[in-house]
């Protein structure tokens, strides 16, 4: 290992990294701006300067940028020399010439990297006497605010947006000291990862509009480590609250999963917690079909009554609810009366995922995806269905450029140089989907195929692979041959698929292809994206009875946990649901199922409840409540397990507040009891209690605070009444406390509720919690991967489809949309304008057979609603496919025969294109 000598002291370095990384990894407080751990170096800001000495005799040294200097053994540097620190101070002084010094009104204030660096270098007095440059700001959409005057021209935003995330509607304009970062004109930033600008920008140019709405300084936020509920990736997040409102979601670094980034569904979709569609109190449906509010005790008594007097009570769980809530439901109704809330189709798909994860197949983490040098995507719309997967694939295709850099002795971190060298050279990425894919721009080949054609193609490729090139070669199409050879010859090929088309055969064919591939190339990997944040968890918990099967058993009482069965199974199925005598629904947001419930119990959202979720790779992760739910809202696991109890007289908050102040070690948190029951009952889940310490966990004798430490000068909540804050409630359910007392620095990663380190108030302080830059958490990466094995699954038999069998009639294909397809995040008001209006996209030929043209409207009448779709012509859609967005408005379309669609005469486009996707059950009573 190379050793650097910095100010006379030896410092370990790592070959292939740069000096800035070495300094930060060693914990040195080295200021920087333009360098980013995930994006490498470009040397723009000149903030990370130090002196480098040519040799032992050299005592003068030369200013170099640590981020642009490769680590070489024995190289001598000084960080503390006057010339070095003077230079760094001068950088800040010069960066500040045009800065507006508007920290008091800046959303970034208090967690601003620029503030931190200014203090760090010791620049204090302003010497510039001239005028400041001022810019006009732009409207960039519902998520991100823009205040260009705060810009320090570090270029991080465009580098993230264009180079890392593949966006093309943000750029640097102009030159000299008048560079503008923004769009060509005001308008919505289109990229799905735009929200990361908020964290990537070291000052307050790009700010979080959702935070601005409920604005709170970092030191006043109450935060906890949470698991994103947006999709199956399970990104780690910090969610923050004040005054009972969710203020914002930030990235929580996880080496193996999301790294430094999040997608906009995850970041902004969490605002569903503040939605007016939240269910605030228990309710009972009266004769007119409206809801009368009820006390929680009365509601529970009613439910208990239903259960006691019903011949059969069934419980429908949910892949978006925690393991704990599902287990509590399962215990309440009995295993034989419980379904994990997935349809038959979903259960089969997720069983495949489970079997693959539990086998000896190579199932990479998201971080590992970046190491594959050839990727084949089969029918998975990663960007819209598992967004961070798409971001990883985008980085993986850069492997070719890294190889080229290696040949030319250019370091990987030398970002601009690697890009210049490689130009458009990318590792092969082949995408087979029915519709245009957001990754097409980096794909070497995009095949537009109907779902069954995807199955046929992958079957062909696997046959070609297993037969060797001689025998059946003649039968395989040239496309299949080409693919087979590409995969076989790659150093590390990866096959990606998932549930986004809802097609079991695509998943089976993917497994078959991966098995065939792994036989000829043992380095091959397979990655299957699951559907929802806990789909894999549900498959692991109890994958026996599907919703359809269970509901067919004529229950008298049916308890539905956080699951809209209409959007899951269609309107036809929903009719069965209304036929059940007593329908009890626990949920936090309004939806079609809620609207037909007899008894409604207000569940806590992810921000108000503990829970364990298992992501697409079988990793169990604990989500911790950020704040206490208001009124009679309570976590589902709590509502369900208390239904099972004798005691009636408690409400969730009271139970927390009434417990003794010092939590005795004999206290058994309710959630913990359920976790233990899961651990003891299901052997594949026996390690779930390892994903976070339990409620008894203490650091230096106290619980871990959700708030920044006392010295940060927190603003009193009720200062207008009294500056003495009321006693905080005691959290008996987790190891976190609703206070600022206690030690946050030494908390395990799974319990760390924000990142902060002396001098580093911004999110950049993350490096203080990593073993090295971009490395593992010093306290161990949170979560546990539960599944691994070594046996290879048997290949599936899929009835071979011949070309003749491939249907040539038009058929619907539902496309996920990052905004709108997930029933929870789409209830965040901020997202409403980003949700597409219903359309149907098809190629010209298909349109001709249907007799429609672009811009036409098509409609169909369902029993209880009418669906209207605008026709979009796109020859980049596979033949015969009618692609429509999976949205609340299009539920039920799958059951319609395409032939039944009617042309709308005189269609003028959707009437109210910006209508928010909000359902509000009439709860007026």
């Amino acid at each position: 290992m190379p050793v650097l000598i910095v100010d006379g002291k030896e410092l370990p370095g790592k070959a292939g990294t740069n000096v800035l990384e070495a300094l930060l990894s060693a914990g040195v407080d080295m200021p920087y701006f333009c360098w980013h751990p995930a994006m490498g170096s470009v040397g723009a800001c000149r903030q990370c300067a130090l002196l480098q000495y040519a040799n032992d005799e050299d005592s003068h040294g030369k200013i170099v940028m640590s981020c642009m200097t490769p680590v070489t053994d024995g190289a001598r540097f000084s960080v503390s020399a006057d010339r070095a620190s003077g230079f760094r101070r001068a950088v800040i002084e010069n960066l500040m010439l045009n800065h507006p010094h508007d920290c008091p009104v800046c959303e970034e204030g208090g967690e601003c990297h620029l503030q931190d660096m200014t203090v760090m270098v010791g620049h204090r007095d302003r010497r510039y006497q001239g005028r400041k440059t001022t810019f006009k700001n732009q409207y960039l959409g519902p998520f991100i605010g823009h205040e260009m005057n705060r810009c320090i021209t570090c270029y991080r935003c465009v580098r993230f947006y264009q180079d890392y995330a593949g966006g093309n509607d943000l750029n640097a304009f102009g030159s000299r000291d008048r560079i503008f970062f923004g769009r060509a004109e005001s308008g919505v930033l289109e990229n799905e990862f735009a929200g990361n600008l908020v964290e990537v920008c070291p000052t307050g140019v790009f700010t979080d509009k959702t935070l601005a709405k409920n604005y709170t300084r970092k030191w006043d936020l109450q935060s906890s480590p949470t698991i994103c509920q947006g999709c199956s990736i399970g990104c780690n997040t910090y969610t923050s609250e004040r005054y009972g409102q969710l203020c914002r979601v930030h990235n929580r670094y996880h080496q193996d999963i999301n790294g430094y980034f999040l997608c906009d569904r995850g970041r902004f979709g969490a605002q569903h917690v503040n939605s007016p569609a939240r269910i605030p109190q228990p309710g009972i449906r009266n004769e007119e079909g409206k809801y009368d509010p009820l006390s929680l005790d009365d509601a529970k008594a009613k439910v208990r009554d239903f259960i006691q007097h019903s011949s059969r009570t069934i419980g429908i769980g949910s892949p978006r609810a925690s393991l704990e809530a599902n287990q509590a439901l399962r215990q309440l109704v009995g295993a034989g009366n419980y379904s994990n809330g997935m349809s038959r189709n979903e259960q089969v798909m997720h069983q495949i995922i489970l079997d693959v994860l539990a086998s000896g197949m190579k199932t990479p983490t998201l971080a590992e995806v970046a190491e594959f040098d050839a990727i084949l995507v089969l029918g998975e719309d990663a960007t819209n269905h598992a967004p961070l997967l798409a971001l990883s694939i985008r980085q993986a295709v850069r492997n070719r450029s890294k190889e080229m850099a290696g040949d030319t002795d250019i370091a990987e971190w030398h970002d601009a140089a690697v890009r210049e060298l490689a130009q458009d050279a990318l590792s092969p990425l082949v995408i087979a989907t029915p519709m245009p894919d957001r990754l097409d721009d980096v794909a070497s080949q995009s095949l537009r195929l109907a779902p069954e054609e995807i199955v046929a193609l992958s079957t062909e490729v696997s046959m070609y692979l297993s037969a060797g090139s001689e025998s059946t070669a003649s039968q395989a199409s040239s496309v299949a041959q080409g693919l087979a050879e590409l995969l076989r010859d790659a150093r590390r090929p990866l096959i990606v698929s998932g549930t986004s088309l809802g097609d079991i055969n695509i998943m089976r064919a993917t497994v078959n292809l991966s098995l065939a591939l792994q036989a000829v190339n043992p380095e091959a990997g397979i990655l299957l994206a699951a559907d929802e944040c806990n789909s894999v968890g549900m498959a692991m918990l109890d994958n026996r009875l599907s919703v359809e099967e269970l509901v067919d058993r004529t229950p008298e009482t049916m308890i539905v946990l956080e699951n809209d069965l209409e959007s899951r199974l269609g309107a036809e199925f929903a009719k069965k649901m209304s036929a059940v005598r007593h329908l009890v629904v626990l949920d936090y947001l309004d939806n079609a199922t809620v609207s037909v419930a007899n008894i409604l119990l207000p569940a806590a959202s992810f921000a108000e409840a503990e829970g364990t979720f298992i992501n697409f790779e079988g990793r169990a992760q604990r989500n911790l409540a950020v704040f206490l739910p208001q009124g009679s809202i309570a976590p589902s696991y709590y509502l369900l397990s208390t239904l099972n109890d004798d005691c009636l007289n408690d409400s969730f908050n009271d139970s927390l507040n009434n417990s003794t102040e010092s939590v005795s070690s004999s206290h058994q948190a309710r959630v913990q009891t359920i976790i233990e029951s899961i651990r003891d009952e299901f052997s594949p889940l026996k390690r779930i209690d390892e994903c976070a310490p339990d409620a008894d966990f203490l650091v230096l004798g106290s619980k871990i605070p959700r708030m920044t430490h006392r010295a940060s000068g927190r603003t009193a909540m009720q200062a207008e009444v009294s500056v003495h804050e009321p006693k905080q409630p005691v959290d008996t359910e987790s190891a976190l406390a609703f206070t600022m007392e206690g030690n946050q620095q030494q908390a395990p990663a799974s319990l760390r509720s924000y990142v902060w380190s002396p001098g580093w108030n911004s999110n950049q302080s993350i490096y203080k919690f990593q073993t090295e830059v971009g490395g593992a958490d010093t306290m161990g990466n949170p979560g546990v991967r539960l599944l691994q094995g070594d046996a290879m699954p048997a290949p599936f038999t899929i009835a071979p489809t011949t070309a003749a069998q491939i249907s040539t009639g038009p058929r619907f294909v539902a496309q996920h949309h990052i905004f709108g397809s997930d029933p929870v995040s789409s209830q965040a008001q901020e997202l409403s304008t980003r949700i597409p209006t219903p359309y149907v996209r098809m190629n010209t030929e298909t349109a001709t057979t249907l007799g429609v043209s672009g811009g036409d409207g098509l409609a169909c009448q369902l029993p209880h609603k009418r669906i209207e779709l605008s026709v979009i012509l796109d020859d980049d859609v596979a033949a015969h496919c009618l692609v429509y967005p999976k949205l609340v408005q299009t539920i039920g379309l799958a059951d319609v025969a395409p032939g039944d669609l009617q042309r709308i005469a005189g269609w003028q486009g959707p009437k109210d294109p910006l209508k928010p996707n909000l359902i509000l059950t009439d709860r007026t009573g």
Partner: protein
Amino acid sequence: MSQTHSPTNTIVTDKFVTLLSDAEVSQIEAEILLLPDRRSAAIDALKIVQEHRGWVSDESLVAVATLLNMSSEELDGIATFYNLIYRKPVGEKVVLFCDSVSCWLMGGDDVCKRVQATLGVAYGETTADGKYTLLPVTCLGDCDHAPAMMVGDELHHDLTPESVEEILK
């Protein structure tokens, strides 16, 4: 059964591309042929459009961007970097007055003042009759005959306050 994606087969009836004349499009396409990819022709394309229209309007910018398979952000980032791509209308002739050091030493400031007085405009402005736009320019490489300026494509040197009046008459 399979159809390989290429960005050109999406049906876009782009109102902007049609804004460019055939001559412009064919000149731009000719440049592209010499280059490894379409976007490398960005500056050439902007110059071709400017040659035809005098300046690059927002609409022409979008048209060129579409033609080159770029976003308008990508193209405008380039356009706004170069001082000889005009993103605002200019007069029939652009007067590029050298404001660099040799011309300054030879009394360029006074000559420039006369230019401004004669045209009645400051740097960056266009005369009311739309004939001239006055812009400063970096050393024209004519320092042994300073002060110098260009009017349209023509270089004028050894300028005096009197001679500029004559030239711009």
